């Protein structure tokens, strides 16, 4: 019995020693992309189907989920948003613009991933809507929009307030949902 136990112990050690452990002496060069996007383990396992939605419609769905205080729907919508990023039109863009578009898309992906991974914490989803809204607005500034949009602003969210985009004139606040649905005002209209 003793002999068997010793052999098992030695074999286990040998097997375990031979797995894992790479030499990490190089430094990662992140120059053109952000490594942290696409690394959320939960989403890597889910295959996100690319879909035909425009990123604008998908963003509006995410916003709608938060307006309705529905974290699950918001998480699902953010997956649609990630899937729609392949549809972003790149025709007629200068090299500079294309680089910018790629950067914005990476950022949208990262923010959408955080939203998708936090169906249990709507407050965290809302924090990422702030960043997502900036990204989407900046992307529209380069690639345009197929529908009229309104840039709304809520002065009460966090110290500096927060912006979101809407396709309706009436204010429906995604940062507060039902608790303060109509708080905010239109800052700007986005037409092209």
């Amino acid at each position: 019995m003793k002999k068997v136990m010793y052999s098992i112990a030695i074999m286990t050690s040998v097997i375990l020693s031979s797995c894992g452990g790479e030499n990490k002496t190089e430094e990662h060069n992140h120059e053109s992309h952000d490594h942290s996007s696409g690394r959320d383990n939960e989403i890597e396992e889910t295959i996100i189907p690319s879909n035909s939605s425009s990123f604008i419609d998908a963003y509006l769905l995410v916003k709608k989920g938060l307006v309705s205080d529905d974290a699950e729907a918001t998480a699902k919508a953010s997956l649609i948003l990630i899937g729609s990023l392949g549809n972003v039109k790149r025709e007629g863009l200068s090299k500079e613009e294309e680089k910018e578009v790629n950067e914005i898309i990476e950022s949208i992906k990262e923010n959408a991933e955080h939203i998708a991974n936090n169906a249990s914490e709507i407050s965290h989803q809302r924090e990422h809507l702030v960043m997502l809204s900036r990204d989407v607005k900046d992307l529209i500034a380069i690639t345009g929009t197929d529908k009229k949009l309104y840039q709304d602003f809520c002065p009460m969210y966090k110290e500096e307030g927060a912006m979101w985009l809407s396709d309706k004139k009436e204010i429906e606040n995604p940062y507060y949902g039902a608790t303060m649905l109509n708080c905010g005002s239109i800052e700007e209209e986005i037409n092209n």
Partner: protein
Amino acid sequence: MKIKKVIVSTVIVIVVGIQFIPATDNNIETAKEKDFSVIYDTPKNIKITLGQSCYDCHSNSTNYPWYSKIQPIRMIMDSHVEEGKNQLNFSLFGDYSERVRRNKIESIINEIEADRMPLGSYKFMHPEAQISSQEKTDLFKFLKQLKSK
């Protein structure tokens, strides 16, 4: 009882066996100019807060206390460090675009304000990593003015 002996022996074999799982220390030579505290002229007290409460998981240099040499503690630590660096790496802040830098700074504020960071388990093992009320105030003030630049 024979069963008892088998179970105890198996547990011992596993516990001893996993100690041999190789691990690589997260201590990677990185260009200083890429570090967050070099890019933004960071006051000493803020550097200390970041170093004590954040850098173990969110940089290219992790401190490994004695107990971290024991498995499965080391495996748990390594997964924290890997995930931490994926989300935010202060040592490579210079590689982030302006957009990403802004988002990261905003996220740092959000995570600490909501007490999601530092991780509860990390604070338990490293009481000095607790960010005090005054430290939070100073940190947020510093980060907010970075965002507005």
